[in-house]
């Protein structure tokens, strides 16, 4: 309710704003709105999807230049040119995004920066773009009954576009597409293992950013009606970056606040541009060091600081007991679900896996044990597609899946947890589950434009499913909390819940008991058994031998990258090679207690 009131007040204020401004001020406001649109686009790419994009101003320039060229040189009407300009920026955005498929972070930053420089170099030299003088005489966009040559009226056009773009951006961020992008930003590996098509998502991020850039460019061409290279140079790119960083890159509203704030400061210091630049450069440095979430992150930081002062720290939320699944014996029980055939994985000189073969039947709980460094996690990484085996094949559900990308395997019904917990740190617990539960394809995101209601409806359904999962795992009270703030044992449970929420046929658990206390281990055993009873095959890497012995029907023992034993827990425990690997040779099998104790 309060947010709605604020929104309404904001809308009214924005509507009334021109009445209090002189002709220069309204021009400044018009320019600020364009920067705000650019900042939202950059925020989507950098803050939401984690793609360092230093070509946003160049894309902006493409939008403006294409409009200018098409209207002045080809004689097209403004709106036709505008549509073509946005299409052009979409194409350019995709081209700029291509490097993101290969490189990330610093490399991506420098490549996009290089492409931006290439753009300015082109427009400064090309005949078509008017060289250093640029292009003037862009016609006023015509709108029946509205004279858009008035900057007051142009303001309303911009305001409407801005409001729609902001709303659309927020819509994306809060639903399936944006959630997946944020997951990818936090941990691309885990996102991929949960079925997020990382390459498609990266391209989508660049595409979104360039649409915003292109629309900004069109508005700019219509407002200024003159384009020149220096409006789209690197200095303006860094100014835009400063807006996004200072405002808070992970919040679109923050990006807008940053854009407005910085633009106003720049305007106030318009006679001292160097001082303004030194100031905002310094603020960028201070922000990354001391407040990496920017202005938008301040309220949260203040609130949590106050809470810490008062000694309250989310202690209110309690873990509820796990509610077992209804047993649902799969008809496929006993059939082979996974077949690892003579897999070898070599890292430089080291053979992490050496000729490993393994067959897992549907409905089984399989244990994989072995000393540290024996290749267990490497085996999981090969099965789940993170590593490509040097030799050998992996078959999953009757299909050869060797070397498939993790997201393809995930969509084929494979899910996993990680030894060192890979929860999406800046998403809530519920969002972590939602990302896993969401099986929609990223390329279906055209629905955002054409069928937004269906997107909302599906998202509501996802939320319902996620609630069910949280309830079942006793995590309901943690739904809105950040995983990082939770005790380790609960984080482990969230990760398992997330892996199961993806609806897998085969679940890989990598040391799920590490760091858990005795009671938590007991609960874990119960959870894993129930997961299996619901029809999911489980492979579990574990060091806690008690857990393995009680939980698993079969145990595979690895040592030095080779399988040294495979059989029931009791058989394995009496294999001399296993005892050697764990305890050393001085303790022989004869010293071991009888089997009855083994099965407890």
């Amino acid at each position: 309710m309060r947010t709605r009131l604020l929104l309404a007040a904001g809308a009214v204020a924005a509507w009334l704003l021109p009445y209090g401004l002189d002709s220069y001020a309204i021009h400044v406001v018009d320019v600020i709105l364009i920067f705000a649109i650019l900042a939202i686009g950059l925020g989507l790419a950098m803050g939401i999807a984690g793609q360092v994009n230093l070509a946003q101003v160049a894309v902006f320039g493409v939008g403006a230049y294409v409009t200018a060229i098409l209207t002045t040189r080809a004689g097209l009407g403004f709106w036709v040119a505008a549509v073509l300009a946005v299409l052009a920026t979409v194409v350019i955005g995709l081209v700029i995004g291509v490097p993101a498929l290969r490189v990330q972070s610093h490399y991506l930053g420098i490549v996009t920066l290089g492409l931006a420089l290439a753009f300015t170099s082109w427009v400064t030299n090309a005949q078509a773009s008017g060289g250093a003088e640029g292009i003037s005489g862009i016609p006023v966009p015509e709108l029946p009954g509205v004279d858009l040559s008035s900057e007051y009226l142009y303001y309303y056009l911009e305001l409407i576009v801005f409001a729609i773009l902001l709303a659309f951006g927020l819509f994306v961020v809060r639903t399936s597409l944006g959630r997946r992008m944020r997951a990818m930003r936090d941990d691309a590996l885990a996102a991929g293992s949960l079925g997020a098509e990382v390459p498609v998502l990266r391209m989508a991020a660049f595409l979104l950013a360039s649409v915003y850039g292109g629309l900004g460019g069109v508005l700019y061409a219509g407002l200024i009606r003159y384009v020149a290279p220096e409006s789209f140079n690197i200095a303006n790119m860094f100014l835009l970056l400063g807006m996004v960083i200072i405002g808070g890159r992970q919040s679109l509203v923050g990006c807008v606040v940053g854009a407005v704030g910085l633009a106003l400061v720049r305007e106030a210091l318009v006679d001292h541009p160097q001082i303004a630049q030194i100031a905002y450069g310094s603020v960028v440095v201070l922000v990354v060091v001391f407040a990496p979430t920017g202005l938008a992150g301040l309220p949260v930081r203040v609130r949590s600081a106050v809470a810490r002062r008062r000694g309250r720290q989310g202690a209110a939320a309690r873990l509820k007991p796990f509610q077992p699944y209804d047993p649902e014996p799969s008809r496929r029980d006993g059939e082979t679900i996974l077949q690892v055939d003579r897999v070898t994985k070599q890292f430089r000189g080291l053979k992490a896996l050496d000729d490993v073969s393994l067959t897992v039947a549907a409905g089984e709980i399989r244990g994989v044990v072995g000393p540290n460094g024996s290749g267990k996690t490497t085996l999981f990484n090969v099965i789940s597609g993170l590593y490509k085996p040097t030799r050998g094949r992996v078959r999953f559900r009757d299909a050869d899946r060797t070397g498939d990308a993790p997201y393809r395997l995930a969509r084929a019904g494979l899910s996993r947890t990680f030894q060192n917990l890979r929860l999406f740190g800046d998403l809530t617990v519920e969002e972590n589950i939602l990302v896993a539960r969401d099986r929609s394809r990223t390329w279906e995101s055209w629905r955002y434009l054409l069928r937004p209601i269906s997107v909302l409806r599906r998202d509501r359904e996802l939320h319902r499913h996620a609630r069910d999962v949280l309830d079942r795992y006793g995590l309901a009270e943690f739904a809105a909390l950040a995983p990082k703030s939770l005790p380790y044992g609960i984080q482990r449970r969230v990760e398992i819940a997330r892996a199961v929420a993806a609806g897998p046929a085969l679940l890989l658990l990598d040391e799920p008991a590490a760091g858990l206390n005795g009671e938590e281990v007991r609960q874990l055993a119960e959870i894993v058994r129930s997961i299996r009873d619901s029809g999911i095959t489980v492979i579990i890497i574990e060091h806690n031998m008690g857990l393995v012995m009680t939980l698993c029907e079969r145990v595979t023992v690895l040592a030095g990258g080779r399988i040294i034993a495979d059989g029931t827990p009791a058989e394995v425990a009496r294999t001399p090679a296993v005892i050697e690997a764990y305890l050393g040779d001085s303790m022989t099998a004869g010293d071991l207690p009888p089997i009855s104790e083994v099965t407890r």
Partner: protein
Amino acid sequence: MQVFLQTIIGGVSLGAVYALVALGFSLVYRTMGLVNFAHGNVVTVGAYLASTFYLTSKLPFALAMVIAIAVTGAIGLVIERVLRPLENRDFDLMLIGTIGFGIVLDALVIAIWGATGRAVPSPVQTEPIDLLGLRIRTYDLVVLAIAAAATVLLVLFLSRTKRGAAMQAVAMDHEAATAVGIHVGRSNAIAFMIGAGLAALAGGLVGPLLYVSPALGGALGIKGFAAAILGGFGSIPGAIVGGLAIGVLDSFTAGHFQGYSELVTFIVFTVIIMVRPTGVFGERTVNRA
């Protein structure tokens, strides 16, 4: 053939400057895993400092260079010290932090020296050497010699001194380095200082070759980075080969594409990154990217 060789020679001296810029990038990357986006701006600062001491203060060119290197080295120390809390934690934020410093340096340059550039006369006033019909400017040879000397010194420092070995150790494993008693922060600071010093050396040397303007560093920075990538990031011989290669490429594109030369250079560089992110000569994996 004559034209071909003359074009190569024309590219080599600028290539040597690119190589120096690339060395600075590589050194900082090798020791900290960080790409310093302010590097290009430090080049600009170095170029202005050197030309100011040389032209305005009328100091000998060599002395002007030394002072410029010392001052920019100090700037490098400041950058590292401010960003130290982010080291080994968040490289994306550090990247943005160095961009922030770049913004500040850029503005400082314009505030101090103005937006217009200046031409620096060559400190070597002899006639070009004529070798088998090819004209070679003496200053080009000076640039090559200084770049070669700087490279040799850097290699010796890294391979022969305790501090040099420690700096590399920090890059490979900062925890193990700490355990043997290395002050990781100090080591990074020195890396940053040397990197900035190399940038100033490049900037000072390039003054008489190009026009010194606030935009100088941006172009040099990105080409130096392209050189570093081309050679395999973090590799010192790679930086040299990459620098010379970009210099020659530059020289050819300038001949064939005139104003579009930068465009072509950047596109070639983007394609190379796409095809081989580890560089043409590199074998190190791009594990931090």
